[in-house]
């Protein structure tokens, strides 16, 4: 009986530890979000969206950084998403059992977790040194390299969920393979493909390291793709590490904006994915 009680005690202790671990994990999420709102919410005003990043000591906003982020993200997506979708299409449709697919899947999973700072170095080597200067295009290419593995992975997974009987029915009507893929498989997996793109946006909109050596930063508004461009993460990095209080406040406000945008997108992606899989 004493032994039984000891076992029960060990069991209870283990359960309590597991609950504590969960509270610990959830606690960080709450703490970080609370700190963001606490420090960043006060700085939210119209000026944030209408004025340029200021020199230290004067008022300003984050307009050039927000616009820059949007442009570079769009660029990264425009380059990366089509490549990712095409590659995922090959893996799920044409070469489902081929050796190439096996290797690509393996390498893609590694690229998915590869350090993003290395991607920045790579693009610096192949673009910035060639062109002789930092540019928004280089930043876009760096982000595209991060987009590709995310989109490849979801595209392949979602196309594999499309039932083979749909493809067979279309092929039986005499549709060529390419048409089956575009008109049947893509359409059936549309929500899934969109999920992948949303996940990719969420992933890159907070990326900082690859932008530091490619798009650099810009104190002023610029829509020139061939010149350095400002972005929210780069501005946060610069402002947070500066000794000026007003810059630090702006950094917190920017951090709040990015985090809630990213979290909203990942939740949206999750909802969309759940719907795609249930259908």
């Amino acid at each position, binding site marked *: 009986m004493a032994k039984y009680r000891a076992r*029960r005690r060990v*069991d209870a202790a*283990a359960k309590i*530890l*597991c609950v504590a*671990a*969960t509270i610990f*994990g*959830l606690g*960080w*999420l709450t703490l*970080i979000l609370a*700190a*963001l709102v606490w420090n960043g919410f006060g700085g939210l005003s119209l000026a944030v969206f209408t004025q340029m990043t200021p020199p230290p000591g004067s008022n300003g906003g984050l307009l050039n950084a927000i616009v820059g982020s949007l442009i570079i993200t769009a660029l990264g997506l425009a380059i990366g998403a089509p*490549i*990712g979708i*095409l*590659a995922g299409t*090959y*893996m799920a*449709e*044409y*070469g489902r059992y081929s050796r*190439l697919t096996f290797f690509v899947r393996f*390498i893609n999973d*590694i*690229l998915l*977790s*590869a*350090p993003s*700072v*290395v991607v*920045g*170095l*790579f693009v*610096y*080597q*192949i673009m910035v040194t060639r062109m002789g200067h930092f540019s928004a295009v280089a930043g876009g290419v760096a982000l595209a390299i991060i987009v*590709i593995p995310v989109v490849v992975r979801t595209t392949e997974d979602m196309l594999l969920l499309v039932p083979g009987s749909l493809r067979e029915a279309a092929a039986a009507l005499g549709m*060529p*393979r*390419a*048409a089956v893929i*575009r008109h049947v498989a893509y359409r059936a997996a549309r929500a899934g493909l969109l999920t992948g793109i949303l996940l990719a946006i969420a992933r890159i*909109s907070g*990326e*900082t*390291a690859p932008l*530091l050596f490619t798009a650099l930063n810009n104190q002023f508004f610029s829509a020139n793709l061939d010149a350095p461009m400002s972005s929210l*993460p780069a501005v946060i*990095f610069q402002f*947070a*590490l500066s000794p000026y209080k007003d810059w*630090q406040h702006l950094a917190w406000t920017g*951090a709040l904006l*990015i*985090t809630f945008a*990213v*979290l909203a997108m*990942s939740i949206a992606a999750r909802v969309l994915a759940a719907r795609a899989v249930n259908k």
Partner: protein
Amino acid sequence: MADISIPIAQARLSNEVVSRARALRGLIFRDRIFRIVTRAAAALVLALLGGVILSLAWGSAPTIRTFGLSFLITEVWNPVTDEYGAFAPICGTLITAFLAMIIAVPIGIGIAIFLTELCPQPLRRPIGIAIELLAGIPSIIYGIWGLFVFAPFLQAYVQPALINASQPIPILSTLFAGPPYGIGMLTAGIILAIMVLPFITSISRDVFETVPSVLKESAYGIGCTTWEVVRSVVLPYTRVGVIGGGMLGLGRALGETMATTFVIGNAHKISASILAPGTTISATIANEFTEAVGDLYTSALITLGLILFVITFFVLVAARLLLMRLDRKAG
């Protein structure tokens, strides 16, 4: 009249045949192009990996020519005299990642056990999603939070207590020596742990769910407690997958950049104390790359990048191979 209409009908027919054949050829052609384009895109993913390694190796050539293998074990990092060694950042990377794993692996597994065995069904999804949201928060946010909120907290409350408590104990007193800076190896390790926690949790949870319920039920049936079922059935059954998940988290922790850059202190030295500031490979690159003047300085930083990429590559390959082994068992 009939004599004439037949050839016309025949001509029409053959026209149709020709245009049909042409349309078919067009379709075949387009199909082939689409196939080639998708195949090229897939091959590009492979080329990307090769390109990264080649370009980094190319950029590292000056460093390797100048310092040779001694680059790996030299602690000096002096841009003024153009002398560089990677030992301090490599050690920093390994130590912070190790600290992160010590904290994140048990907690991640604990959360996964909670989610699969203890949690009431309706709460499972929301709690799971909340933990996974930790992975969605961008790295730079962890950095700014760590620098302004977490590090001052550690400096004011936790580190002085650690220093005092470990004073009389021989090994611990060197490990937790020195003034409480707030920023440093330990802070970076804790923040990395929070960042990799969701990866370890979600993979552990996924592999725990592959345990056949018959196995668990028979263990419960002979009177095992929940903990005994977890320890003697669930964990042995999923060991490979849990290790794979841990390795995946390790890969992330090794390469994490912005968060560590904010809280590591960026000091190119190796200290026995984990409270002291240090540096990691990624933090060194992020802090110094845009300010690096001179070819050798830039090249040394690129070599650091190459080292980091090679280390994470092998860790991630190991993780994937372990997880694949599990897939084969499950499938």
